[in-house]
């Protein structure tokens, strides 16, 4: 089994004419790679009517509905993270309850509010209550604010994780830009932070550093926007890890932090 814990899909309000091709391409490539389940999120309107990383409540609801529809259309292949904006606490809480009860299996936080902000606490309380992980968009070592997002880095995520030790947090795309070594230093001793291996970066030495810092029991495989790099990392990991360790990265770690029965073989 192979679980992609970081996927995205587009819907009819996304500002891309090629959205259906991109969705189809993900599923086709997933078949070639051998992906069993795509755990995906939709970030509001993908920028069309509110910013990608600051999605408005109506856009979030529409995107989450679209993902629920995809989950229903592909019940064995697609599972969802409910995406929320922590600046809208009431909406976020209601959306989490609604979407988890409809079958979603995690919470996605983009970059609408810094990860160590108290506004994330009520979201994390719900994550603990429902026993679902939180996938947090991360800029690996943010040295300044970047346009279009209130990005967080690993240090800030770890601050949040220490406040909520019973919640599993996924540090998004270690290869997705920024200084991954900074992140790996930060997460080393924070047992409830898991490292998502996806991102376009395929640096030599990065995977060895992930294994060394977090251990194989805290690594999760994913693809995000570049499935080729995900497949490459999987291939390379097979030269570093034994079969049992590979099973942890491919799916067993995911099974451990997502709700029971989230995946077919669970």
């Amino acid at each position: 089994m192979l679980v992609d814990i970081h996927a995205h899909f587009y819907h009819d309000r996304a500002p891309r004419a090629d959205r259906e091709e991109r969705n189809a391409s993900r599923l086709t490539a997933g078949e070639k790679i051998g992906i069993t389940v795509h755990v995906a999120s939709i970030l509001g309107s993908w920028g069309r009517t509110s910013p990608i990383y600051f999605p408005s409540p109506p856009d979030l609801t529409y995107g989450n509905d679209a993902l629920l529809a995809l989950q229903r259309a592909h019940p064995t292949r697609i599972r969802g993270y409910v995406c929320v904006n922590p600046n809208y606490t009431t909406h976020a809480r209601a959306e989490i309850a609604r979407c988890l009860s409809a079958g979603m299996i995690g919470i996605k936080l983009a970059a609408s509010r810094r990860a160590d902000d108290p506004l994330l606490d009520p979201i994390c309380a719900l994550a603990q209550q429902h026993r679902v992980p939180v996938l947090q968009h991360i800029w690996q070592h943010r040295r300044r604010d970047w346009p279009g997002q209130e990005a967080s880095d690993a240090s800030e995520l770890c601050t949040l994780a220490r406040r909520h030790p019973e919640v599993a947090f996924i540090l998004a795309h270690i290869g997705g830009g920024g200084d991954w070594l900074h992140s790996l230093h930060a997460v080393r001793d924070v047992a409830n932070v898991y490292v998502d291996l996806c991102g376009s970066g395929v640096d030599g030495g990065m995977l060895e550093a992930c294994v060394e810092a977090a251990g194989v029991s805290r690594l999760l495989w994913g693809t995000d926007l570049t499935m080729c790099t995900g497949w490459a990392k999987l291939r390379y990991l097979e030269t570093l890890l034994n079969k049992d360790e590979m099973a942890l990265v491919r799916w067993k770690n995911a099974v451990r932090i997502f709700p029971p029965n989230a995946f077919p073989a669970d």
Partner: protein
Amino acid sequence: MRIDVNAFLGAYPWRKVPGTSPEALVKALDRAEIDEAWVTHLPSLFWRDPTEGNAWLASAARDEPRLKPVPVVHPGLAQWEQALADAVNAGAPAVRCDPLYLGLDPAGDDMRVLAAACGAARIPLMLAVRLEDGRQRHPNDVVPELSAAAVRALIRADADLRLLVTHADRGFVEEVHFGSTPEEAARIWWDICWIWGPPEDHLETLLATVGVERFVFGTGQPLRIPENSVAKLDLLDLTAEQLAAIGSDNARRMLAT
């Protein structure tokens, strides 16, 4: 047959990178089922005189016949013509000059003279758009990325110049290709290491719009794991002829042009 036109030997100054020795690179070639690699001495890209690494590179390659040295030429230094002549006489598949790493104007007089000399010597000139993702570079690593405008200027500088551009993304390739005449564009080859596969399908798009004949297999290893370039080809539905073209035939055609 698969030729990696974009590989390095030696340490990187900005972070620890495993597998930088000739022996380790050959093991990586075996692992990724790559037959041959065109290699540059990575540390010397950062030296005042980068040609000082060429002798070590030649020596290393003598012991590993699958490694083909791509020596560096610095057209801002006296006697650079000798470095170019040495590369040609040694049968190097290309010479390398990354102008911004050498403090040169990428489309300035020095580079234009080098372009003309490479054209006259019938040897391709290789240069990289970047070596690392700009978002992760060391705070003191402030060398700008190569611009598409510079590549367009270089290919126009000499009618016999052939360019091998590495680490370019889709937007860069498109800007240069469609900003050049067909004759100019036909003298530029692109390695695939920085071009995204699915679901964005940038490589598939470029193969359809720019043409399979313009792309060569490259990895950027050991700074990047070579499995990436292999995986993105495996994700495409290419014919055996197309795979052979990207894998090695286009690189050979570039040398024979």
